[in-house]
């Protein structure tokens, strides 16, 4: 697939940017930090109305049959605006797992709701520092899950989850209806991510992929999500670079705009470099879905986008000086989001190893 956006794709970017700018503001987002269990309702309503939930799903289940490139374009704009709920990525991951590995019956049951956004999906693979644990903490036996899936993004609101579970020593990718599953909110630094521990106690679940293939399938789903998240990170980094630039043009010290000092202007120019590298890697990764180099491309996108967003968070606050660390200005919304996106979908350590395994020809 080409890495040049077509007219339709550019229209998706422009329109999503316009609507998010109109409907999501930092004044809505700041209060969400101080409570658990709340997300930006307006954001999610917008996502559903605009068809973003349906974007990458097949038409026969109510989807729009577009792909990762279009998901990425939306995610980039969500990143710029800070969004307000993690469901776009979590539901996308869950839906892709069902689409790729589920039975006809499973697809018919779940995909229409995920496409409309009435159903919220979650992906529960990680166990603490390990995004794809060899021995997952959740056990699967005789059609039931037992154990705890920790810190699942969107977990407080999700209706269905894809779980990486342990079946007598081999991995299994399972799908579980979360109705009635107890969940404990995690008080986090970014509460609108709706993080929760899910406790399974003889919870009925079905197999999607069994055995060693389950691990590959999980990595593929994680990579798809990572590419979406990388776009979101790049959007956030781009917004911060522009905020820093605008501030450096207006704030004056020693008789000139602070942007005339090289310590400031070079810092912002370096951010430009990080943002453009991340953007280029994101575009390449989204366009390589289904190709041999997809996992490596996803890893590169993920690594450069994480670096861009984290660095932009640090530097944008630094360029603002004292005002940058106030609650009200809200730059900490980006700082927090940069870190939560860096942790969701596997840390940089994980993706570095995934990448080097492939480059060194030792694919695990």
């Amino acid at each position: 697939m080409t890495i040049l956006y077509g007219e339709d794709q550019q229209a998706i970017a422009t329109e999503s940017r316009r609507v998010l700018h109109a409907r999501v503001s930092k004044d809505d987002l700041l209060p969400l930090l101080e409570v658990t269990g709340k997300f930006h309702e307006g954001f999610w309503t917008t996502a559903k109305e605009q068809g973003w939930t349906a974007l990458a799903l097949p038409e026969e289940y109510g989807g729009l049959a577009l792909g990762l490139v279009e998901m990425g374009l939306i995610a980039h704009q969500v990143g710029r605006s800070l969004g307000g709920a993690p469901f776009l990525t979590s539901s996308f991951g869950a839906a892709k797992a069902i689409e790729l590995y589920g039975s006809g019956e499973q697809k018919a049951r779940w995909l229409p709701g995920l496409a409309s956004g009435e159903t919220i999906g979650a992906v529960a693979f990680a166990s603490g520092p390990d995004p794809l644990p060899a021995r997952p903490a959740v056990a699967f036996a005789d059609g039931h899950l037992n154990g705890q899936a920790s810190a699942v993004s969107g977990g407080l609101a999700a209706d269905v989850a894809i779980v990486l579970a342990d079946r007598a020593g081999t991995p299994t990718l399972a799908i579980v209806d979360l109705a009635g599953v107890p969940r404990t909110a995690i008080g986090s630094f970014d509460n609108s991510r709706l993080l929760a521990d899910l406790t399974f106690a003889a919870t009925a679940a079905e197999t999607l992929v069994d055995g060693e293939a389950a691990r590959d399938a999980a990595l593929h789903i994680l990579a798809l999500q990572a590419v979406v998240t990388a776009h979101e990170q790049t959007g956030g980094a781009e917004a911060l670079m522009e905020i820093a630039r605008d501030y450096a043009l207006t704030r004056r010290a020693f008789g000139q705009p602070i942007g005339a000092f090289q310590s400031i202007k070079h810092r912002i120019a370096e951010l430009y470099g990080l943002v453009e590298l991340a953007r280029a890697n994101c575009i390449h990764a989204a366009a390589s879905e289904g190709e041999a180099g997809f996992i490596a491309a996803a890893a590169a996108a993920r690594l450069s986008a994480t670096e861009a967003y984290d660095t932009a968070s640090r530097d944008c606050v630094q360029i603002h000086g004292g005002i940058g660390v106030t609650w009200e200005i809200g730059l900490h919304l980006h700082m927090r989001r940069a870190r939560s996106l860096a942790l969701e979908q596997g840390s940089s350590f994980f993706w570095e190893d995934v990448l080097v395994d492939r480059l060194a020809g030792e694919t695990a």
Partner: protein
Amino acid sequence: MSDIEDYRAGAAAWCESMAPAFGKAARAGLGVEEDLALARRYQKAKFDAGFAGINWPTDLGGQGLGHIEKITFEAEEMKHGFPNVYFGISLGMPVPVLMQFGSDRAFVKERVLKALQGEEIWCQLFSEPSGGTDLAGLRTRAETDGNGWKINGQKVWTSWAQYSDYGVIVVRTDPTVAKHKGLTYFWVDMKAPGVTVRPIKLAGGDSHVNEVFFDDVKISDDHRMSPVGGGFAVALATLMIERYVATDSAGFGPHLDLFVELAKDVTLNGRPAIEDGRIRQQIARNYAMRAGLDSINRRARLMMQAGMTPGPEGSLNKLIAVRSRQKLSELALDLQGTDAFLFDEHLSPKDDWASSWINAPTGRIAGGSDETLLNTIAERILGLPQDHRPDKGVPFNQIPA
């Protein structure tokens, strides 16, 4: 297959066929003079095959094709280590400027044809001991002398001046006006009386750059390529010509694959270095960075093919690629431990880590230092203010030294 893919295939086939006579292996062990002689034959073969002056007008001996064909050929050419370096500056800037601004068209055509065939080389006399980045602060002066001009002063860092037949030069013709306004652009005969070229040996051992002294060098007014006092605009045009060049995300150092191979071959603490987290992190980070540059470059190519103007992000390549090549080269030497001491200054920075390392600083300074490139990004792309410039608007001869 698209037209450009056909073109690429033709270019690739020609380069393959030239590799035995002119490629890396053919050049091994040659001294500079022999290599230059080989290079002239290579340039002639390139001209005869229709791969010289690819995007230049046909009436001046070029091929009349686009930027996209030019960088397509260059990308293929780069794979073989051909001796094209002696003509890089000549055909990159001075000769195109001559085509654009030279007044005597018969003279221009003769020079262009000779340059395209490797018979003549042009150099670019811009930087001076008192400044490189601050081009408009130059001090070499030209005074009227009868109907012509007389040049006195010194240039420096002039690539290939010792082999050059001609050069383009910016000089000060009026020190009483602001520095940008008192400059004029000429071409000069490098063999003229009063021109002295002294090679400068660089840290890595080679001497491709020179000091060039001008002592009462007399030129006629038909050497002038700009209005009197209008030289700065032509100098800027010179620097803008080479916007479409093939780039290298390895920063003209070794490919990352070579680092991965090295990390598989050597051990750290008794284990293969490729298993060491510090090494893995560097590989992954460098891969992500280079993949990003490759994607930017691919996108620029596609945009050119589609008749669009590529985005400004292409300007990141040199800044990011060379800086990281320098660090990766240090790390590659670390990996080899004391085995890294063995040094052969004739090895290419594309293949050898020590050569890449010792020559990397040149890459970060020549053609726009890192700091200058960051300023350019900040000012031109992001719209940030210029630095404080105390000499702005001040007549040149009143700027405090």
